[in-house]
């Protein structure tokens, strides 16, 4: 960790400038959501535990496993057992979950680092890819939050690696998804752990009517991936594989972007193609189109400052040249924003979402010391960077109630009680998981709802029914806000289900969908504050109604 002391010096020299910049910032005058801790009252009692191998990991999958369209949870446990929790939260009410065994062999729930939901077999029931220290698992969803191990039926070789990243995409003409696994340190290699990162793995489905992953492909070199994401970085419709890597253990490594052309071998983008080497303690990726150019920008968490990458002016369709805009957007989140600990932060899960429903994208970052690294902040609160209309981020974690001291890892920003206001579940290392309910904006008389919202679920048909890879464009006034349906990113944490967008003061919106194969939908007219379902080819959007109440009125406190 020689770099750490250098880093501390760097920050000491630059903090004053950053602080000055911060002082020159206009105040954030829009709503700050207030989050209330409800894990205990909701029935969630869960910790992510374990020695060195579990310093990383600690993910959560947020997805509907019993077809009631409420996000249920699967929480990684490390050396403790992972756990399924079924969501019984009433619409707009206090959060309520119930632990369930899901029918899985308890041994398969051990050594779990994270998980991602997706429907691998196109049966419209979400499955779960479980990342473990040792054999990875595909748990086939059977409905009713029951699962069965499907490694054998899918010819899926779970491997023996220390798997810490995952992403999936449907490549053109494929019935089943292509799966990518990111591996960490090869603990059996000579000289381990330093310079011994295990290769990553790409699994393309073999031709046929059933999913068969019998021909895995090694992606070398591996640089100790901690997050990966299939992403259409150049807006060509072809999704390449972005990987963020932990410099702590690689030697000569860097961040990676694999070109994954259909039916051809993956190939790393090189410096000659415009890819600039970047070495960080990469731990999480999130993507969002921050500047409205139709191309995703990326948040990369690390130790020290968070990176915010956008395509450089020199970039071209085949030249992925990025520059960092975290400083200009004031999203570096490089040290704790409260408390006396001024050492650099350690960032893990990153997720873009509009948590205050003002139409601007916000950035949540889970923070926490690796274990007891003295060069880094030991009390490291999670970040809530609220975006404004000028594209600047404002740290409001303290006001929002997110400034806890736990060593946070994975997380999911999702709406657990269907009130249109995003809640957060956070997995903490050696500490209870947090379940934070978004109550709305605090006032002197209570809480008031945030801005308008929509939540959109897509139905792509028989293949890839959850439309992984689709882009959702929502037109409000003169603006278009976008989201991409993806599987991957964050820190070993994934989610599936409704895609949430804040609509601010807009009462109506027009939605267009670019389906995973690139085909655009017709425009769909929707009204705010409803759950919308768009079926491919349908002439009108449908609404989904919770059984227990009107979501539009549910946020009454």
């Amino acid at each position: 960790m020689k770099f750490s002391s250098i880093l501390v010096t760097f920050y000491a020299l630059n903090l004053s400038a950053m602080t000055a910049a911060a002082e020159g910032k206009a105040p954030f005058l829009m709503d700050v959501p207030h989050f209330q801790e409800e894990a205990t009252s909701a029935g969630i009692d869960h910790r992510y535990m374990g020695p060195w191998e579990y310093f990383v990991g600690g993910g959560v999958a947020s997805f509907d496993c019993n077809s009631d369209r409420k996000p249920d949870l699967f929480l990684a446990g490390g050396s403790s057992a992972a756990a399924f929790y079924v969501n019984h939260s009433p619409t707009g009410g206090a959060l309520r979950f119930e632990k369930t065994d899901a029918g899985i062999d308890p041994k398969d729930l051990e050594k779990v680092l994270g998980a991602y939901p997706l429907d691998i077999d196109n049966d419209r029931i979400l499955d779960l890819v479980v990342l473990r220290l040792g054999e990875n698992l595909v748990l086939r969803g059977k409905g009713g939050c029951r699962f069965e191990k499907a490694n054998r039926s899918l010819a899926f070789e779970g491997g023996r690696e220390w798997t810490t990243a995952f992403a999936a995409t449907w490549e053109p003409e494929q019935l089943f998804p292509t799966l990518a696994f990111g591996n960490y340190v090869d603990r059996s290699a000579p000289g381990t752990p330093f310079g011994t990162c295990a290769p990553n793995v790409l699994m393309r489905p073999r031709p046929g009517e059933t999913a068969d992953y019998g021909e895995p492909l090694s992606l070398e070199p591996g640089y100790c991936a901690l997050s990966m994401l299939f992403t259409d970085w150049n807006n060509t419709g072809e999704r390449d594989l972005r990987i963020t890597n932990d410099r702590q253990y690689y030697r000569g490594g860097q961040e990676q972007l694999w070109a994954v052309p259909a039916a051809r071998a993956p190939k790393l983008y090189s410096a000659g193609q415009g890819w600039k080497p970047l070495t960080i303690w990469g731990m999480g990726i999130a993507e969002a189109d921050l500047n409205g150019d139709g191309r995703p920008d990326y948040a990369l968490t690390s130790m020290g400052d968070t990176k915010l990458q956008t395509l450089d002016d020199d970039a071209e369709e085949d030249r992925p040249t990025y520059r960092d805009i975290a400083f200009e957007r004031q999203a570096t989140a490089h040290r704790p924003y409260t408390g006396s600990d001024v050492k650099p932060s350690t960032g893990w899960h990153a997720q873009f979402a509009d948590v205050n429903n003002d139409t601007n994208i916000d950035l949540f970052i889970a923070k926490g010391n690796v274990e007891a690294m003295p060069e880094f902040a030991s009390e490291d609160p999670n970040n809530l960077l609220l975006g404004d209309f000028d594209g600047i981020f404002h740290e409001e974690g303290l006001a929002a109630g997110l400034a806890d001291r736990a060593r946070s890892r994975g997380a999911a920003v999702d709406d657990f009680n269907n009130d249109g206001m995003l809640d957060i579940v956070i997995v903490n290392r050696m500490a209870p998981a947090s379940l934070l309910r978004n109550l709305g904006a605090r006032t002197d008389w209570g809480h008031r709802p945030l801005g308008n919202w929509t939540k959109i679920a897509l139905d792509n048909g028989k293949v890839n029914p959850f439309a992984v890879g689709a882009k959702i464009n929502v037109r409000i006034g003169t603006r278009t806000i976008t989201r991409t349906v993806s599987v991957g990113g964050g820190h070993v944490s994934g989610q599936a289900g409704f895609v949430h967008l804040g609509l601010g003061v807009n009462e109506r919106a027009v939605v267009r969908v670019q389906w995973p194969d690139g085909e655009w939908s017709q425009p769909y007219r929707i009204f705010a504050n409803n759950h919308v379902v768009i079926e491919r080819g349908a002439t009108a959007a449908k609404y989904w109604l919770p059984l227990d109440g009107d979501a539009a009125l549910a946020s009454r406190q």
Partner: protein
Amino acid sequence: MPHALCRAVAVVLCALAGNPVLAAEPWEERTPEIGQAGPEVSGLLSAEHLARLTSIGEKLFAARFTSLDGNGRPFATQAIVPTRRKHPPAAGEFSRTAGMDANGCSGCHNLPFPGGAGEFVTNVFVSEGFESADFDSTDPQFSNERGTNSLFGAGLIELLAREITEDLHRQRSEARSEAARRGETVRVRLVSKGIDYGFLTVSPDGMVDMRELDGIDMDLVIRPFSQKGVMTSLRQFTVNALNHHHGMEARERFGARWTGTPDFDGDEKPDEISDGDVSALVAWQATLYAPQQAAPQDARWQQMAERGAKAFDTLGCAVCHKPSLPLSSLSFADPGPFDVAGTLNDRQVREPAIYDLNLFAWAKILPRNEKGEVLVPLFGDLKRHVMTDGGRETLGNELMAQRFVDRNIFMTAELWGVASTPPYGHRNDMTTLDEIIRAHGGSGRAASDAYQAAEEVDRQAIIAFLKTLVIGP
């Protein structure tokens, strides 16, 4: 400190200090009633308190807003959602087309009294304010030209709309439960107060198919105001209009909470209209008396009007222009329940204000049915209809849909007070009642044809009847 920051801080300080900043002098060119209602209004208002509030609202309605008040929106368009423009309009801020197009509410709403309708000269040019916001042409490819509507009885209209909306939401919720309970799809006819809004089909999993809805938005919210029926409440209408017509931006939609700045329109007047100011305007409009049927002094007119009332029914006019709708409660809550963020609703405030319309003499004399419900004599159905067909396109003279409502679809005009609000039609371009009746196509075609096929005496009787529907104290 960067210039933009200095300006932002100054604006915030001004906002904190209140507006107007300096104590008002009697000669000041400001509207003194701005701010008089206080920052917000809540709770059940006594008759005295309500009278004071409506008095402020009346004066605000009649005010000629000045630049010192905040009149003007050099960097904002007329759009109902905060929308910036890069430069002030080249031709100046006042414009009879794109707006600002009036100095005060009563500049247009004045027929026969303030709060009423307006004649052709008061037409407004409705555009979204997103693309081509600065149009300077009356060409219909840029805007829809509309006459000014009357607001008399508007409180009752909004209460009816709320009750229908609540009723339809309940029916939808019941269908949802029923589909889940039976495990099969349920198709339910949506009917409230005798008005048929088509069908809703709900699957056991909660999916709702809305393709068979008729005359109502997908969210089943009745939006009773404007010619198209696209505004939920007097509050929403007021906030929209203040920006569009006067460049007076209400804090509850254009304020810092939603735009990041208290001076969105860039005229250096922060928080121009407070929540309380809007409340005062709403209170005055909501308590405007309901138009009534006047008994003609002339015996022949009286006789013909009676005949006309019957013909109005038998010829089919009353299918849409329903003579009355029952209303359960005269308790008007502001903010109301069905507005969404951008217009205050009852979840956004500590406690809504309650205006008891029973306090007003005009409300006490409204007829009631056997259930004790007030029979609101609106001659309307709070439903949208297609008003053209292949053979009759007169009312299809607009080119643009408005807020998801197609160009030839309009809300049934309430006919109470129609005798006091000529000319007619959504463009105010029909000079007689006979002309507008003949222009009905689409859903109104059968009744119009029946009118045209009727004997001359019956046509005259219908006009005689409609001429008794007046706005008057």
